[in-house]
């Protein structure tokens, strides 16, 4: 049915998943840093974090990706020329992870900020009263309780992130969308191959939703909910 292209596309799906997971990792780090900056006592840090989240909210991911990919390549070229070393190609995968991670870091920063604020101050005061250090309070009290509030937001953003990986095909990464485009041209059956990509994305998003639902339940153990 797929004229031998199925393994290729599945390989592309693995690449898409890899791109999404690496971006997620980067975004989580950027998000925690952003949230800490937003809640920090230092005004310049707060200001910087606000600029970060505002710019990301206002600029499309594709535009940012094109800027990172083509602009980054230009900077790399100037650097290699200056250092008099050989030509170096900026990898679309690196550009993709950097851009998607940077973008979703801003969304995660908002999620984490809200989640940190949702933990009652009394919990932190109790930790301090027991003589815990700031770091111990963070690891033992703030972080585990924050996670429950952050999970729904993180989950939604993960689903958006997963789907936004498709645009990396526009800067030439051979992810499943790009491979489907090639296979569709060769076999003259583009509909079939794009539909296959849709099915693969649906599998990933549906599996993610199911998993996230279970995680949310797990982290909400001991929280009373009202019966409707």
């Amino acid at each position, binding site marked *: 049915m797929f004229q031998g292209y199925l393994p290729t596309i599945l390989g592309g799906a693995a690449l898409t998943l890899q791109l999404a997971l690496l971006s997620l990792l980067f975004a989580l780090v950027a998000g925690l840093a952003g949230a800490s900056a937003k809640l920090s006592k230092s005004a310049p840090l707060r200001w910087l974090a606000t600029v970060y989240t505002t710019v990301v909210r*206002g600029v499309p991911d594709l535009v940012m990706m*094109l800027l990172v990919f083509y602009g980054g*390549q230009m900077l790399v070229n100037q650097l290699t020329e200056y250092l008099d070393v050989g030509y170096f190609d900026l990898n679309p995968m690196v550009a993709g992870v950097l851009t998607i991670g940077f973008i979703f870091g801003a969304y995660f920063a908002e999620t984490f900020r809200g989640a940190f604020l949702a933990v009652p101050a009394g919990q932190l005061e109790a930790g301090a009263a027991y003589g815990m250090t700031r770091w111990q309070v963070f690891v033992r009290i703030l972080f585990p309780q924050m996670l429950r509030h952050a999970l729904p937001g993180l989950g939604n953003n993960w689903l958006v992130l997963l789907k936004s990986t498709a645009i990396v095909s526009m800067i030439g990464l051979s992810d499943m969308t790009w491979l489907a*485009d090639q296979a569709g041209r060769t076999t003259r059956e583009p*509909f079939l191959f794009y539909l296959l990509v*849709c099915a693969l994305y649906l599998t990933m998003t549906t599996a993610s939703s199911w998993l996230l639902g279970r995680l949310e339940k797990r982290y909400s153990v001991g929280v009373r909910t009202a019966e409707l």
Partner: protein
Amino acid sequence: MDIAVVTGSLDQYLGGLWLTTHLVTLSCAIGLAAAVPLAVARVSRNPVVHGPVAAYTWFFRGTPMLVQLLLIYYGLGQFQWMQAQWEAGNPFWLLFREPYFCALLAFALNTGAYTTEIIAGSMRNVPHGEIEAAKAVGMSRFVMLRRILLPSALRRAIPAYSNEVILMLQGSSIASAVTLVDITGAARNVYSKHFAPFEAFIFAGLIYMVLTFALVGLFKLAERRWLAHLESQRVTQAAH
């Protein structure tokens, strides 16, 4: 930075701005118009009614809009009956060869799916008391829907819907994948002509930012107009 690159291509950016504006406005209008009846069907208890709508939103919310657009624009040409219609000059099916029409269709279907779920979620959250009161004064299901449920749900949906419109504005940048010259398309042309990525893409980013802030402002006004009665509630919630 060479500002002349941008000032010399202002007409291209303006053309792109115009295309982005009406593409997003039209697709959001179509999507919203379709979403209201679809949301009513989505909250129905009858599986024959809510099933197809759930399948539609599941597909369009679970796949990237770029792939949906490619599926419509490049994909449909695969079918022989479609090619036959094109050769016969059927004016309706010829639309599917137009990149503008395909982008409009893909965007409207996509935003329609998200908006359906937003409104359906908002309908489920209408306070029971409002519905019971409507039943108590003897309203029929349709009258209740028109007078109570929809006005209340649509108002409450405004904050979530404002996010959806902003995401559509950003998402519309993929129109350049099907040869359309929207703001991003203009920036890509300027980049390849002058080989100036920073000027080309940062200027495009600035235009999108201005549009985003304008939308945020507009929706703030809309909330003040239509959600004023919930303002006191929100203030007390924020204080908790």
